[in-house]
């Protein structure tokens, strides 16, 4: 089994599995975030549950961090290996004749997403870890004790137009990454072409709807507060 995961195909499977896990995570993240548009209370309740339920915090969160790190690190390792597989580059290469821009530039859309994740961690994850596990405040309440803090924190983050712009741009790159990544994950997992055709339409819809939804949430809070 260890030989399998060090083989080129084994790494493809691992990349695909981590990608599928991240796509599932993105879907649940979106499902909670969209609540903030319709009901601040529901968003607060859901956020508090996710932030305090032990299965999410101590089981799913480490898996997520591992998945994110694995996907990025292995992505870079594979990119370096792939570049080394062609020492002399072509003087003329017409890549657009046979493949999409998204498929040829996954490393660049991935780098843009990595940059966004750094910003996102600084904005939300690090303050959250600080509040809960360093200061030891698991209540999720505002400083004045009047209700949960999650909705307030979210809307506060989307006041700065530069940050909103960065979020919008990052989700455009995420959409481009998913345009190829979704179907690629299933191809790497060995899904047959008959099933893949059906999945492709779903994948394209996912790659547009989810990032667009995140963009609209950011814009909604920016213009409403």
């Amino acid at each position: 089994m260890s030989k399998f995961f060090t083989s080129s195909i084994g790494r493809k499977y691992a990349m695909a599995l981590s990608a599928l896990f991240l796509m599932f995570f993105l879907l649940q993240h979106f499902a909670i975030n969209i609540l903030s548009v319709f009901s601040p209370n529901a968003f607060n309740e859901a956020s508090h549950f996710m932030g305090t339920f032990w299965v999410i915090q101590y089981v799913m969160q480490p898996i997520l961090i591992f998945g994110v790190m694995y996907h990025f690190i292995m992505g870079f390792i594979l990119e370096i290996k792939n570049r080394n597989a062609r020492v002399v580059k072509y003087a003329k290469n017409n890549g657009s004749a046979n493949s999409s821009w998204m498929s040829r530039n996954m490393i660049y859309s991935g780098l843009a997403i990595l940059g966004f994740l750094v910003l996102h961690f600084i904005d939300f994850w690090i303050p959250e870890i600080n509040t809960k596990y360093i200061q030891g405040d698991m209540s999720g309440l505002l400083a004045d004790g009047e209700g949960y803090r999650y909705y307030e924190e979210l809307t506060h983050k989307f006041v700065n137009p530069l940050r909103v712009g960065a979020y919008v741009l990052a989700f455009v790159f995420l959409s481009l990454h998913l345009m190829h990544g979704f179907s690629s994950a299933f191809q790497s997992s060995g899904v047959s072409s008959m099933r893949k055709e059906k999945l492709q339409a779903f994948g394209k819809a996912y790659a547009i709807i989810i990032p667009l939804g995140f963009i609209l949430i950011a814009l909604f809070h920016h213009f409403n507060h």
Partner: protein
Amino acid sequence: MNLTLKIWRQKDSKTKGQMVDYKVTDISEHMSFLEMMDVLNEQLINTGEEPVAFDHDCREGICGMCSMYINGEAHGPDRGVTTCQLHMRMFKDGDTITIEPFRAKAFPVIKDLVVDRSSFDRIQHAGGYISVNTSGNTQDANATPISKHDADEAMDAATCIGCGACVATCKNSSAMLFVGAKVSQYALLPQGQVEATDRVKNMVAQMDLEGFGNCSNTGACEIECPKGISLENIARMNRELLKATFKS
């Protein structure tokens, strides 16, 4: 038609190569690309220059020997053809055509446009066969029923001529379409089942050893393949390797 050719010239595998410009005149649009290269070479020989070395054999699109990267595409701008079947009608009078060898670390240049594709042979030797004694005791072809679908898919995979266009065109120099086709043609048939586990494991291991890159599913190989080998063969190879890993 009159053309300007930018061709990769490299004396041998140890010498550094470079692009060199040539002019060819009065090229008929009915000529094949290799015939145009023949005209250039006659011109070079007549002027005492070294002719351009390039691979060719059957010139019927079957042998998989011709291997040029023309205007940024393996086997040139036409679809479903090898370089020998590419016709000059695909170009216009006055065009500049860039001609390079198939490039990959696993396909080192021997001279000019000739590359060493023996890495493909070594992958085949690792398991691209079935061990059957065919000396006089060949089974009747219809003794083992095979579904039409499987027979067609196996035949499609078997049409791979091993030219290496998939590797040349892949941005990662991956050989997975080639290996996928060779694994698939046996995986779909009952005759291939006996050695299926070892075959896929050994062939993939040899592919990795040769220094090919990793497939990132751009699909460029499928588009540029002169025989239209489908990406489905890569998916099947992935399934076969997973199955083989669990079996052993």
